[in-house]
């Protein structure tokens, strides 16, 4: 079962092209790291190369703009709201606070709350073929953990295992997807 699509998080564009002075390399790297660690996607816009287009939702454009920008703008069809903020003289932490403040204003989804699934092995159907060990790219299965699923191991699994990769191909799949609940951690 797939979950319903959720509201996207606030998309961020770091604009360093015409009309905006580039950040120093050190500040740019630090800012990117800060935003990424908090779960925000960032498009670095520079001359000469494309980035992904954004057609809908909320887009925050950060830059050291040469001239005043309107705080808000909207696409012709109204599907995309664009927010401009200047970040000259702001530290990475101050930019993060600015981003989080705008995210709350726009009611966009808060990033980083992902821990919804973990795999559960049905030992009545498991044939010990060990295919799950070789199939899973996230190293969540081991021979010991198949027989001794401790709570700490399961908690570790749910951090590391994307929901979609918990399934092996074929109808004989002994691995199920179960929504995480503490009473299942045993």
């Amino acid at each position, binding site marked *: 079962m797939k979950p319903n699509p959720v509201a996207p998080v606030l998309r961020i564009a770091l604009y360093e092209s015409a009309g905006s002075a580039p950040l120093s390399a050190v500040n740019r790297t630090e800012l990117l790291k800060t935003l990424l*660690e908090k779960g925000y996607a960032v498009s670095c816009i520079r001359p000469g190369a*494309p980035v992904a287009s954004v057609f809908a939702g909320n887009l925050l454009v950060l830059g050291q703009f040469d001239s005043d920008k309107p705080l808000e703008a909207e696409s012709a069809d109204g599907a995309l709201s664009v927010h401009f903020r200047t970040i000259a003289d702001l530290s990475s932490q101050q930019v993060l606070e600015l981003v989080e403040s705008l995210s709350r204003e726009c009611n966009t989804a808060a990033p980083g709350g*992902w821990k*919804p699934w973990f795999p559960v092995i049905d030992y009545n159907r498991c044939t010990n073929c060990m295919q799950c060990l070789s199939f899973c790219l996230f190293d969540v299965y081991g021979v010991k953990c198949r027989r001794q699923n401790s709570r700490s191991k399961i908690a570790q699994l749910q951090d590391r295992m994307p929901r*979609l990769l918990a399934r092996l191909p074929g109808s004989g799949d002994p691995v199920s997807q179960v929504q995480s609940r503490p009473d299942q951690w045993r």
Partner: protein
Amino acid sequence: MTKPARILYCHCAFAQVVPTEVKQEVLRRLSESGVAFDAVADLCEMSARRDPGLKQLAGEGTLKIAACFPRAVRGLFIAADAALPEQGVEILNMRTDSAEQIAEALLTVNGKPVAFAEESK
């Protein structure tokens, strides 16, 4: 003149299966390169949430992705109903390759650098 490939970098912020030193070095090299790129916090998280942004990231044209195992990355996009095209997508594995190898693959086309390091360090 061929259009440069888009670059998509995954920071693996939540799954944390990519070695920290590799992803941070790749991010630093991208940041200092002067090229445009998209950076996402975690493709797994976006896929689990079926974030519509994945469709835009899959987009059109050639694409280089610095993330995880190619099979896993393609699976993440498929799960979010944003399947990557069969052709024109190069997936680089930060779990097995060095930062140097990843950066070189991202920032060169046919052995030539796509951008020079900027001066504003």
